[in-house]
Structures are given as C-alpha cells and as structure tokens.
C-alpha cells in the first residue's frame, strides 16, 4: 500500500481523471451490439499500477461519473462504483510492478493481469449486476449478460492495451544500463 499521499498523487488523480474523461471518446466496437472496448479503462489501470490504489480508485469514481455525465448526460451509478473496485484493486499491488523503476517484467505483467481479472470479475460479474438489480430493478438475465460482456471487454482491453502501455512506459521512461554504439 502507498501510505504517503502526496502532491504527486493528487495531481495524478487530476490529470488521470482528465485523461479518462477525454478518452471516453474512443470506443472500439468488437462486433457485439452495445459492447465496446474502452481504452480509458487501460489508462486507469496503468495509472493505478503506477500510483497505487487510492489514485486508481478515485480516478475510477470521478472519471466515470464525470465522463458519463459530460458525454452521455447521465450517470449510471451501479456502474460507477464497480469502477472504483477495478482501479483500487489493480493499485493494491502497485509497489510490486515497479513501472517507474523500469523493471516491469513478465512476472509483474502476470501479477498485474491476475489482479485485474479478479478485480474486473468482482466488479462486473458480481457488483454491477447486483447493484443494477437492487437499485434499478433491472431484469436479472439482462444485467448479468451485460456484466459478463463488460467483464470480457475490460479484461481484454486492460490485458492487452494496459499491459502494452506498462511495458512500453517502463522501457521508455525507466533507467537504462550501459549501451555501446555499433558500426
């Protein structure tokens, strides 16, 4: 856990939320009606992995609520709260990913993906449909199907795009050892 909540974390939430909101614009269709891959999820996962659970969770909350309100004019609360679980969940192991140190390796990637799958399962297969039923009295089979698709879409986008971003950032921003010029 990241105990010290400093200025950098506050700014990361702010800029991260801005990124999340802006990227609401990109939705990649995957051929199933009304279901899209959301690159913004991957960015939230990235920031959670770098800055920890609080940053991840709050970006999920503010970003989802604000993004939906600004782009879609409504806030579907039963899908906002699960987002917090995903962001915070992925951030829990942020210390062990070592992204900024440039040491995000295959083992870290496996850990990251296990965590994101568990967090997404909790969020979309369990929490979101249950909230949908309790709060909005939506039909159970509909919300569980929607939840399953959301789960699928999110683990794909975080698993592929999130992992690519983490590897790339870790390699671009991290330290590098000694290199020699070749002829």
């Amino acid at each position: 856990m990241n105990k010290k909540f400093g200025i950098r974390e506050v700014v990361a939430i702010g800029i991260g939320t801005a990124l999340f909101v802006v990227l609401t614009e990109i939705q990649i269709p995957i051929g199933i009606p009304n279901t899209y891959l959301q690159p913004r999820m991957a960015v939230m996962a990235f920031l959670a992995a770098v800055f920890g659970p609080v940053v991840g969770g709050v970006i999920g909350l503010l970003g989802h609520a604000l993004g939906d309100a600004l782009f879609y004019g409504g806030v579907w609360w039963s899908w906002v709260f699960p987002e917090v679980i995903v962001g915070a969940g992925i951030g829990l192991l942020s210390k062990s990913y070592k992204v900024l140190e440039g040491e995000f390796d295959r083992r870290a990637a496996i850990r990251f993906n296990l965590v994101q799958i568990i967090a997404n399962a909790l969020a979309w297969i369990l929490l979101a449909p249950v909230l949908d039923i309790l709060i909005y009295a939506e039909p159970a089979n509909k919300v569980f199907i929607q939840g399953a698709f959301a789960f699928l879409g999110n683990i794909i986008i975080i698993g592929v795009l999130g992992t690519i971003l983490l590897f790339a950032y870790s390699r671009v921003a991290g330290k590098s050892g000694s290199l020699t010029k070749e002829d």
Partner: protein
Amino acid sequence: MEPIIEFTDFTFRYRAQKEPSLFGINLKIYPGEKILIAGPSGSGKSTLAHCINGLIPGSLPGEITGSLTVAGLNPEKAGVFGMSKKVGTVLQDTDGQFIGLTVAEDIAFALENDCVPQEEMFRRVDRAAEMVQMRDHLDRSPAELSGGQKQRVSLGGVLVDNVEILLFDEPLANLDPAAGKRTISLIDEISRDQKVTVLIIEHRIEDVLYKDVDRIIVINDGRILADARPDELLCSDVLMEQGMREPLYVTAIKHAGCRIRPEDRPQHIEQMNLEPYRGAVLNWFENTPAPPARPAADTVLEMEQVCFGYSEKHQILKNVGFRIRKGEMVSLVGQNGAGKSTLASLICGFYQPDSGRILLSGEDIAPLSIKERGERIGLVMQSPNQMISKPMITEEVGLGLTVRGVSEEEVRERVEDTLRICGLYPMRNWPISALSFGQKKRVSIASILVMNPEILILDEPTAGQDYRHYTEIMEFLRGLNRETGLTILMITHDMHLMLEYTDRALVLTGGELIGDRTPAEILTDPEITERASLKKTSLYDLALKCGISDPAAFAHRFILYERSLRQTASGQGREVQ
C-alpha cells in the same frame, strides 16, 4: 550591505550521479540586484536555481558541501515550503504552472495553501493582479489567455506572497518575440517598484538585455566562468566560447575586427557609442560578398487563395497564397493565434479549406486522405514525446511503413538508410529511453523521413529548447536540407531560427499573409515586424547607425558570413555519431 544570497564553497552532487553538478561555487547577490544567469544546457544553471528555491535537496536529493544562505535561511533546513515565502519561482512551462481554473484562483493558490482568510485573499489578489496587469481578466480561464498572459498570472501568483527574490527559469522559452519583450519590461518594472531581487536564467541574452541587468553570471560545467557587468562581459568572448549567442550587433562588430570597449556601453544598441566602430563595420559590409541569387526550382507546395474558419463569423485564414520551391527552407512566423498551426493542419488534411486550393507538385490534394497526404507531407510535432510510441528506435522509425504493409525486408532497409542519414545508425539497437532530447527529436524526424516525404513541416522545432539543443536540432535540419535537398517548412516564433536558418519567411497575422520575403528583409522592416509582433533584429539598428543604407543586405551578409564560419568549423570537427 549584507548579501541576500550567498554561496560559499558550495558543491552539490545529485544522489544518482557520480560527479557533482556544482563545484565550489562562491557567489554573492545583493538585495535589489537584477542578475542574468546564462549557461548552456547541463551547465548547472538550473541546479543552481533549484538550490535557491529549496527543491534541492527537498525534492531532488543529493549531497551538499559548503554553505548557502538565502534571505537569512538555509534552504536545506527551510525546505521547499519555507523557501517559497522568500523565493518566488516562475517556470518556463506556462500551462504546467497555471493550476487554477481562473486567473484569480491561480494567483490566490499560494494564499489558499497558507489558509489566508478569504477577505484578505481578495485584497492581495487584486493588488498582485494589478502589478502584472491582469486586473481586468480575473475571471478568465487559462484557455482564454495567451502564453504571455499566462506567464504574467504565474508571476502574479508568486508576487502575491511578498517574496524577496524572484527566480525566472527560461521565461522566454515559450513566448513570441513581442510577448517576450513585454515580459522583460514587466520584470524590470517589478524589480524596481517592488525592490525585489531578480534572477533570470536564460540563454536568449540579447532579449533579456532589452532592459538593464546589473550582472551577468556565466556558468558551465558546474563552475562560474564569468561574473561581470553586461558592458564588460559583452566585450569578452566568454559567451561565444561557451557556445552561447551574443547579441547579434556585438557579434557583427567583432566580425568587423573590432575589440569592443566597456566604456562604449554595448549593453543596448540604442545607447551604444558606435563612433569607434563605424568605419570597420562599413568596411566589413563592403568587403563581404553579397549572397548569390538562388536558381529557381520547381514548386513543391502551393497555396491558392485559401480561406478557412471554424464558423462563418470567425475566419482564421483569409486568402492565403504562396509557393514553396524544391529544396527551400522556409519559416512560417506570426504571433500566437495568427493561424500558423491551422495552416499546417489544412496542408496535412486535418481540416478542409472553405475555399481555395492546395497543390502538391502541381496536383490538387483535396481528394487525398490524411494518411495519403502523410506519405508525401511529413509533419513533425513540437515535442518528440508527442510522437514516440514504441520503446525501440528501429520499431519507432519503421512504424509508418509497417502499418502501410511494406515488406519486412524493405522496412529494415529503409529504416537503416534513414538512421544513417539522421546519424542514429550506431544507436539503432538502443531503447529510446537511452537517448537525449535532441536525439529523440531526431528519431521523431527520422520516423517521418522514412516515408520519403516531398516536404517536411515542423511545428515549433525549437520551442522550449536551450541553445545547445536548439543548435543541434537546427544544424541537423540544415544538413538534411543541404545533403538530400529536402524541402522544409518550419512554424516558429523564434527570430534567430528564422534569420539564421531559413531562406525565406512567410509572415501571417490575423489570418492574412503580410510578408513573403527573405528573413533579413522581414526583420529589418519596421512595419511588418510591428504588425506581426516580431522583433526587429538589432542588426537593423547597427546598420542604420553605421550609415549603411540597406540594412536588409547587411543582415543577409552577416548571416551568410556566420554560416560559412559554422561550416568551416563543422567541416573540421565534424561530429561522427
């Protein structure tokens, strides 16, 4: 008088580095002084500034020996927060430090963090806004402000705290010349009216010297190399030796074979006594060959009566027309909001013109998609970080070909050729993280060049760069232009770049093209420079004061002479990377 800043045998080494970044610094600065700190990148001048405002060792840890006192405090003990009451820092990134949602809130930011009651805050914000001439814009959001205005707000945000020392980190880096001039005047006014001590870190020495400074301190390799009044310093060659730009008129007089004496007050061309030098300058002018006429080549890019606006009322470009010939290096200048970036966006196809035509090698490109244009018109963005998306150099440079389905074999070949041209071949297997900023810039240029575009458009290629990076990038582009005949169009507000590196300048103002001539002619034309917020070159004043009737020819010969010197120099010690 007691010094307000005193370094005594001060040495600092960053924790991650082997060698100290500052060595045995001894420096005294007295209350009310206005000091210019100049030095190339990596010289230690920013490190010096960070020691004064407490970021070192507070946020940037390392090892200190010797002592430092700033306004009676030891920054090491007082920390960033303690020092912020005494030292106000204005950074070069005008957007990064504008944190508030409005002008008033941004100025109030430090007061809010100090729990100052609201009533008092209103009063103090009003006063600070008054000082920086932003009193009428308190409710504006940063999106509604120009770069210069944002910077004035940042200045207000530190003045609100009654600081004793103002520290400016490259304040001119992101401003157009007119805004830069205004900033320097404002700093001057505040330093006199508020009796604060001012430290300006800049390499644009001539622009800072627009208003008097008390001393110039030259730093390189972590050591102070000179500490003198401007009039004295300009007489020496220390700036040139350290790879920095002297005021152009000073260099010109030196080229004429004169030794400048401090008593002639070379700090400002307007007040300088030129009597002793006039003859030599005239003589030099007459004996320097005039530039050869350029043979006319085919037209690569042509704009015909192009109009564009986001809405009917708000026209951004009005009947813009010009031609760019093969092998030319052309600059597109004008103040912020003049329509420069919009013009580039139209050429690249991000927007469509409302009327008029854009021709590429004689062909109307209206039907071409962004991607198709991208193969023929290369666009390089301001910062390489806005373009680089792969961790390895070869992957990044080859990306544009790979996504176009070019065979692996051909991609490899073309990438290697491009890397050779760009001097990156020996580093081809490196990760991009290992490159310097200038090298990254070359990678982003290489990733465009690999597609063999007919013309290269660069957006602010040197914005925010210090002189060394600036020269590195520009010399690279000039070499490309000379060796491969590549046509280059640069969007810039940097007068030096325009004058020293381009053959022709297009001047946009308010969406209209008001000039299309050589940079020397543009920058010696008082009317155009005034209308387009450019800055007249000091060579103009020098020429007139020396009785030369054609200042443009003087400026032109000066630039060619400089180029020939640079070529001889680079011919001797050519960097092979």
